[in-house]
């Protein structure tokens, strides 16, 4: 297996982008990544594009070919594959691209992700997202995504004494980080009181515990490390890639306060990288809801099970803390265009490891991690990076 590196990254502004289409955004992110890598179209061997639900959000499927077309690559006939794993579609596209390069099948490969969610009403968007849960045995009975995570939160509170203020601390921190990220959807500081006073969605989760509906696209260019060293002055090596799955429905899981898919994906990524979780300097984790970040930092091994809330409240996961989490602002405040999210995490980690993260730069970051979850934990991906 060949070592794989990132040689170029690009990401659009995230948010309610009513002025641009999915086609505009995928082209913008792709061109940024290609220019950053200083390569030309003829060098690209393959494209993998993460997209959850073009069919529901813009009534357009076949996003693989569309992306190559929009990127001006149609006349090169480059193979382009759309990849879907709900909110983990981007992370899965990255893994497919990593495997294509590592296997020796392809040399220069682009992994991208895109979602255009605001062309439909919020009700339609919520229903499209609900398709990531078990339609027949969860949604049919009235389950919503916030409700599934709320039930995990309720049990975590009961078992470990986690408080809603501790969950709110995740949102407060991620909004603070987003204020330093030019591409973030929200540039707005919030307080624990703001979270507590925002309308209840599914007890104990309030509106400000939830990630927003967003538009955006991101792309990274991969190459074998041997070639990357010649093409780039600052290649970022991908030293671990893990993927795991679990039951589609939350109720069928072994433990409702652990995402076993995260545990297993992390285990294989850390084993491949040959490092321990404490070696990680900066991580982008899947905070679709505030409680999800608390579960993630526990399941990834950064803190002991049950201590995620306290660690957040104590500032361990803030910029300047022991393990800064979600310096981009996370899904909560940077935004969550579901197909793009997984690639944006790799983009943020690459910037951090290259020392190009501006005001939110983690000092001397050497090892970074990106964690991406699909649905309530049916799929999880973990990638580990170093400079």
């Amino acid at each position, binding site marked *: 297996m060949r070592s794989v590196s990132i040689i170029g990254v690009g990401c659009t502004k995230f948010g309610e982008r009513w002025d641009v289409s999915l086609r505009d955004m995928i082209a913008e992110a792709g061109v940024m990544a290609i220019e950053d890598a200083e390569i030309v179209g003829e060098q690209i061997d393959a494209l993998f594009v993460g997209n959850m639900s073009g069919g529901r959000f813009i009534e357009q499927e076949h996003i693989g070919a569309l992306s190559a077309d929009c990127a001006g690559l149609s006349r090169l006939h480059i193979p382009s594959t759309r990849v879907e794993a709900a909110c983990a579609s981007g992370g899965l596209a990255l893994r497919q691209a990593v495997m294509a390069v590592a296997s020796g099948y392809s040399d220069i490969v682009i992994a991208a992700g895109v979602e255009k969610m605001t062309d439909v009403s919020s009700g339609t968007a919520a229903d499209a997202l*609900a398709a990531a849960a078990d339609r027949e045995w969860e949604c049919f009975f*009235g389950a919503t995504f916030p409700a599934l995570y709320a039930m995990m939160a309720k049990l975590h509170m009961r078992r470990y004494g986690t408080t809603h203020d501790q969950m709110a601390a995740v949102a407060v921190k991620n909004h603070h980080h987003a204020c330093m990220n030019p591409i973030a959807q929200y540039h707005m500081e919030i307080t624990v009181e703001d979270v507590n006073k925002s309308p209840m969605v599914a007890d104990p*989760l309030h509106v400000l515990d939830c990630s927003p509906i967003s538009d955006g696209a991101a792309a990274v260019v991969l190459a074998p490390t041997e070639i990357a060293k010649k093409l780039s002055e600052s290649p970022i090596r991908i030293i671990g890639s893990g993927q795991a799955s679990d039951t589609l*429905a*939350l109720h*069928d899981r072994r433990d409702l306060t652990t995402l076993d898919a995260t545990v297993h994906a992390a285990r294989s990524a850390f084993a491949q990288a040959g490092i321990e979780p404490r070696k990680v300097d900066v991580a982008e984790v899947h905070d679709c809801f505030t409680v999800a970040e608390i579960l993630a930092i526990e399941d990834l091994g950064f803190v002991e099970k049950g201590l995620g809330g306290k660690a957040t409240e104590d500032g361990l996961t803030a910029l300047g803390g022991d393990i800064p989490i979600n310096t981009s602002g996370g899904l909560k405040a940077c935004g969550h265009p579901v197909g793009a999210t997984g690639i944006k995490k790799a983009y943020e980690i690459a910037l951090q490891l290259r020392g190009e993260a501006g005001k939110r730069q983690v000092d001397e970051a050497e090892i970074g991690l990106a964690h991406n979850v699909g649905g309530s934990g049916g799929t999880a991906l973990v990638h580990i990076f170093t400079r």
Partner: protein
Amino acid sequence: MTTQAPRFWRSIPQRYNLSGTHCTRCNEYFFPPRNLCPNCRRGAHLEEYTFGGTGTVVTFTTIYNATEEFERLTPYNLAIIQLDEGPKITGQIVSSLTVPKIGMRVRPVFRILGKEGDRGIIYYGTKFAPLIEPENKEEKK
């Protein structure tokens, strides 16, 4: 949610009567019915099994913001319930008088779950209500 009549019709035994499967080889019970046992896979001996429907609330939430079809019910209680035979299922807790609690005992009730507009089909199925155990006449804490 897009649901057509055949899709609902196929699952009537499960939705009306909590019909699932039991693997006699590993003795695990499954709801909804499974074609393959995750323990024994193709070596399984699966038989149909109708659950009693009584169980215990593992966790729950109160939903204030729902999809269009459930908006008229808000706020409503949703729970993950562990049936006495073992499997966990997601379902609504009905009862305007009782606030759900983790550990609360529940029993199944037959209710309308949804309808496809004024002239479409009506979906019936199982919700859950607090169970008063006959032996202690009190709700388990």
